[in-house]
């Protein structure tokens, strides 16, 4: 609605009721298909399961806390039971002894469910090609997004989450009990490296390792002499 301040004079009328109604219509209503709304809503309200395996979980927990704040992406409702969650982040090494437990937890997640594989170990076994480690969680779980790193920075996990949200937002699930096909096809995964390489190759000025002032993270530290209150 449009607002304005006018001096009210007796006998003078304000804008007519029709105009107010039109303004209301253009601002406060949204026309969309129900399935689009549901896809949008789902993508912005993924509920992660509070689950961690090893080092990566610490970076995942860091993504929950203040500086990174996963709540900005609508995924802060972290549940302690798989039966209330629809996203599992496999954050860490998948051990042979733990794999049946991971499988059981995955089965208990609410449908439709998503899996983010976080870190090199979960992606492929990483540096641990060793008897006690499963060489990648995709040996037994369907993975939606792979986040590389050992461990990935919290920012990388958040990027993975955004990619997952984009993928979920494009999903159209049948809304009636009359189902046509089994399951919903999800978009093919594209490699971010391939997508971003041309843009990254344009970079010409890189911060050298010998001076810390250039590093983006330290810049604000050097500037702020007085303790910040964040």
């Amino acid at each position, binding site marked *: 609605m449009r607002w304005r301040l006018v001096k009210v004079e007796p006998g003078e009328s304000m804008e007519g009721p029709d105009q107010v109604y039109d303004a209301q219509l253009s601002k406060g209503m949204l026309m969309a298909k129900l399935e689009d709304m549901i896809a949008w809503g789902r993508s912005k309200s993924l509920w992660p399961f509070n689950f961690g395996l090893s080092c990566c979980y610490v970076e995942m927990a860091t993504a929950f*806390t203040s500086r990174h704040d996963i709540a900005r992406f609508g995924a802060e409702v972290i549940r302690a039971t798989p039966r209330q969650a629809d996203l599992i982040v496999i954050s860490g090494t998948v*051990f042979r002894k733990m794999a*049946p*437990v991971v499988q059981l937890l995955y089965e208990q997640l609410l449908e439709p469910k998503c899996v983010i594989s976080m870190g090199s170990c979960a992606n492929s076994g990483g*540096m641990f090609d*060793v008897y006690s480690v499963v060489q990648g969680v995709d040996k037994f779980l369907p993975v939606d997004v792979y986040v590389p790193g050992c*461990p990935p920075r919290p920012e990388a996990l958040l990027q993975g989450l955004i990619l997952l949200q984009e993928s979920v937002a494009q999903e159209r699930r049948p809304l009636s009990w009359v189902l046509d096909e089994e399951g919903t096809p999800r978009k093919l995964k594209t490699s971010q490296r391939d997508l971003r390489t041309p843009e990254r190759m344009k970079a010409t000025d890189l911060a050298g390792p010998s001076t*810390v002032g250039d590093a983006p993270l330290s810049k604000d*530290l050097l500037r702020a002499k007085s303790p910040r209150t964040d």
Partner: protein
Amino acid sequence: MSEATIHEAAESPGVVGELRARFGDDCHVQVTLDAIPTVWVPRERIKEVMGFLKTEIDQPYPMLYDLSGIDERVRQHRDDQPSSDFTVFYHLLSIDRNEDLRIKVALAENDARVASITSVFPAANWYEREAFDMFGVDFEGHPNLRRILTPPNWKGHPLRKDHPARATEMDPFSMSEDFQDSQQEALRFIPEEWGMSTKAKHTDFMFLNLGPNHPSVHGVFRIALQLDGEIIVEAVPDIGYHHRASEKMGERQSWHTYIPYTDRIDYLGGVMNNMPYVMAVEKMAGIEVPDRAKVIRIMLAELFRISSHLVFYGTFAQDVGQMSPVFYMFVDRERLLSIIEAITGGRMHPSWFRIGGVTQDLPDGWDTMVRDFCDYMPKRLAQYDKMVLQNGILKRRSVDIGAYNTAEALEWGVTGPGLRATGLEWDLRKIRPYGGYDQFEFDIPTAQNGDTYDRCVVRVEEIRQSLRIIRQCVDNMPAGPYKAHHRLTTPPPRERTMQDIETLIQHFLNVSWGPVIPPSECSVTVEATKGWNSYYEISDGGTMPYRNRIRVPSFPHLQMIPFISRGFMIADLIAIIASIDFVMADVDR
């Protein structure tokens, strides 16, 4: 090793002489680089020897610090030792003497049996199970000798030289329904197997399975609880869900390329883990590290101690019910990690130490960042004192919960803040300064009651002491090289590889094959974030360790959980677990 040195060691006074006086010629002395007296005794007398060392001897050895095995079957260089297929070694610690002692027992392949010493040292229970699991050594008289790290239905003993190391050497992993069912069935907790009854005179016990995935067990860790109402009657910790085979890994990585694996042991400790490993290799290689490298190492290790303690502080408060503190502590940790990142390029696992020094010199401007942090942190800590330590609810949840005294701590192999919380001033950086710590001024924080609250208080005070050390590092950073000029320094200083062909050849060899470390044995311990962390390295004159034993502090700490939680409620158990401050990689490796 020359005859003269062996003779000298045998004649020396101290514990070796005392053992000789008691057990006569049954003792065979081995000389190791770490100067820890190492004595081989016949396996029939092991219990007697342990009893003697723990109780009868003057200035006894009250702590079983480590126990594991060595598969000697393909080792070439061991002329100075009795013949053995499987060796079991026992590492003891004496507070009164401030000395370690290593006892070894030789076993034959077809008769790998030795008496259990659990009746002498209760802490031997888990260590013997681990040695059984990894080497197939039978410990006779052990109360419940079963696998501890590998799944219950695992075939073979991984640390035997004939067990495959790589997952890709074994059948590909697949999860059939049958496999999942059989694995789950094998993990089922059966009270009778642990000597528990399901009912008492007036009550039926309830059994609760906590873990292996539970928000407050800090990783993949499981405890089976026998409950009378909400009171814990008995607890059975079950570990091995985080077994990453780091010891086996050492036997196939070169001395140099193993460094990144150490970072991932105590994954909150970062470069602190590199320290004992590279120090052990340097001792074996005969490298003297320059002063600048020593101070850089200490500074980074202390920064990581603060980082680890901050995670502890926040999660401890959270586990006893305070939601907010963890957010503050993680912000501080981010600040700290930005310094780590500026210096090393990494956050959690920089793998920044090298054999003979560190990766590269400090960047320009590092001192401003570190000084800023040292100015900033104390005010925050003062704020946290009010928010956490003086909070009435937190106190009621943690004071007098899960307490133990010094004697009990030693009995169970507790080191680090958990030991100092009982009042014993026992910090390796002071009592046996290593890597340059003798040059720094700092205090050893202690507390008196050894309860959950005190363990927190000690760690908080340690953050302040670490800040003191870090400030001294900034103020007195020595000039000079950050790497030793030694042919086994890996990689050698870059300027020299560009100038002289010999260094370049060494560089090629060290990178392609790895440095060759002379045959020797050496164990180095540091005061890590969670307690004492040792790397016991055995070289057979190759480019890879022959055996790489990692003694981690959290393994015995978890073993103690039943002892300190009986009679408490489940909520108290959560507080106790939080106060131990462990990560599962530091338990299962």
